[in-house]
């Protein structure tokens, strides 16, 4: 599958592991419940690449203490209208200082990518059937922004000059 990463289209080298399925070789993304149930075993897999997927109702504090274990945190948008993951992303970047990959999954569409990018997402699994090339253009929709966020430390009024 192709995804957007750091504003480029790349082949995804992470595998999502269903709960209960055997752990494959390579880089894996597991659910929060699996992480909780199999914490020790998964920590053993850290060096070959471990990521976690949070569902929309799961919050940043659920993984705050464990963040060092994850190279990828994937946050789900069950519908693009469900904006909880924006806040989760903002907290992970702005408060917990997560430096790894923050990935948007689910109903990820061109018209929201600009906002997702602003709050700290740097990887996007664009929804199936949508043009990933088209989605790539979304980063340039706006050049000026009013608020500080993960991408910009200062509000516009300190940048008006």
């Amino acid at each position, binding site marked *: 599958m192709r995804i957007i990463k750091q504003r480029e289209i790349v082949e995804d080298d992470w595998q999502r592991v269903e709960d209960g399925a055997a752990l494959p070789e390579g880089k894996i993304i597991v659910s929060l419940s699996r992480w909780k149930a199999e914490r020790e075993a998964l920590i053993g897999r850290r060096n070959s690449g471990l990521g976690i997927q949070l569902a929309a109702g799961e919050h940043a504090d659920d993984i705050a203490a464990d963040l060092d274990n994850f190279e990828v945190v994937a946050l789900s948008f069950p519908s693009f*209208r469900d904006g909880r993951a924006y806040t989760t992303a903002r907290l992970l970047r702005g408060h917990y200082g997560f430096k790894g990959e923050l990935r948007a999954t689910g109903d990820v569409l061109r018209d929201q990518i600009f906002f997702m990018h602003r709050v700290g997402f740097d990887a996007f699994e664009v929804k199936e059937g949508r043009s990933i090339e088209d989605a790539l253009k979304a980063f340039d929709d*706006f050049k000026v922004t009013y608020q500080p966020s993960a991408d910009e430390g200062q509000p516009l009024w300190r940048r008006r000059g």
Partner: protein
Amino acid sequence: MYQYDKFDHQILAERNAQFRGQVERRLRGELTEEEFRPLRLMNGLYLQLHAYMLRVAIPYGVLSSAQLRQLAMIARKYDRDYGHFTTRQNIQYNWIKLEEMPDLLEDLAKVEMHAIQTSGNCIRNISTDQFAGVARDELEDPRPYAEILRQWSTFHPEFSYLPRKFKIALTGAERDRAAIYFHDMAYRLVKNDAGEIGFQVIVGGGMGRTPIVGKVIKDFIPKRHLLSYSESVMRVYNGYGRRDNIYKARIKILVQELGIEEFRRQVDADYELNMSRSLDLEDSEIERMKAFFAPPAYRALPEGDAAVTALLADSKPFRMWHDRNVTAHKVPGYSIVTISLKPKGVAPGDATTDQMYAIADLSDEYSLGTLRTTYKQNLVLTDVETSRLPELWERLKTLGVATATVDTLTDIIACPGLDYCSLANARSIPVAQRLIDRFDDLDFVHDLGELRLNISGCINACGHHHAGNIGILGVDKKGEEFYQVTLGGSPEDDASIGKIMGPAFSEDDIVPAIEKVIEVFVAKREPDERFIDCYRRIGMEPFKERVYADH
């Protein structure tokens, strides 16, 4: 008022380019209606019963004469020669063609206007006291803070897909004219014990299916924390507000379910994270914003005017208009004039292209070129020299906008209802018009004193019926339009929610029912008592008894 600089213009231009692209994709069939819907809604474009409806933002209800002229021009060029001023201090056009939208938005941008966030589950247009900056009872002008909030909330990346829409109001006055207890969040400028001016913060008010009076979450926050504190409220709401049921998704339900103490604790906990401290306002930014709203160069004038006093004594029509539609100004020799958009035979809040052009001219001639819109669906000229009231009154009469009924029984707030709105159960506008016709004896209406009657065409309550002293709600009874009546609501300082009087009335029975309510009030009233005070004193029973006596 606020003036855009190159950055504000650029943001608007980029937004309009983005939307033009979206419209083109839709017209080419690359976007389905289902996919396009949320995108157009982000720009205030609704699909109504007959056509597209566009809602244009009038930030905190402040409008220049040039902007009003452009709104008039748009009504002529793109619509059917009229616009509808709404209960959010905005304007709506009812007959818009999708393919013309991009050009229309560019015409708006020429006068620094837009339709951004006039719908969708985001922070909506911010509203204020329509007398902000000129009211006698004001501690400080809230408009600079409204503009600060407007910029912060525009395309906020974290808070554009909230559980539900989010409405903010501000006031700096002692008397609440902005219905602050019926907003998702509201700010009131107050002075603390140390003599410092800051904000009291209210959250969790709202109307709709579950009307709730807002609660104070903070007695006082310093001005510089306006945005950083707002972010924490929004963050808790965005993270934890309900998304499983559209009717339980407003912040009022979250506050109700958690309780105000627990909600406050969660907001404080987020605030303690210090994530938004770069949004703390420095004095220089507050001063920069205030400069945009600095008082104009008022002339030194005496308080009264002999000719006006004489006319008040001689002309009853003038006196009646002056009583209801003129408000004291903070500067001696000036007056605030409310232009009534509630004449007979017109939908409350509607104005024609010609009226808009003419009112823009009057604003230039009489009021330093600025205007306000009110959530009660009228317009305001804020800076009229008192000595010129008689000539202005004549001019307003000619235009048909001098109806002397402001804040009386026939200053009705009404939503568009079934004449336009696809969600409606019943029509609102014809009921408003019939009531205005029925109660056209100005002496009688004036004698009733302050009285608020509000009409909504469905439970979404766009017509604020819960907050009316008398509320009328359109309901559907086996496919027929019926009207439920509530009594005892109040929008402002003594905010309360109306209670249902009893079974709903048919289209034919609704006006007679209101007549009887008024009869009871007249019979039971103590001298000069307001309807709301009378109701609170005597309760629902006497009204109920009389209205349902023959049923």
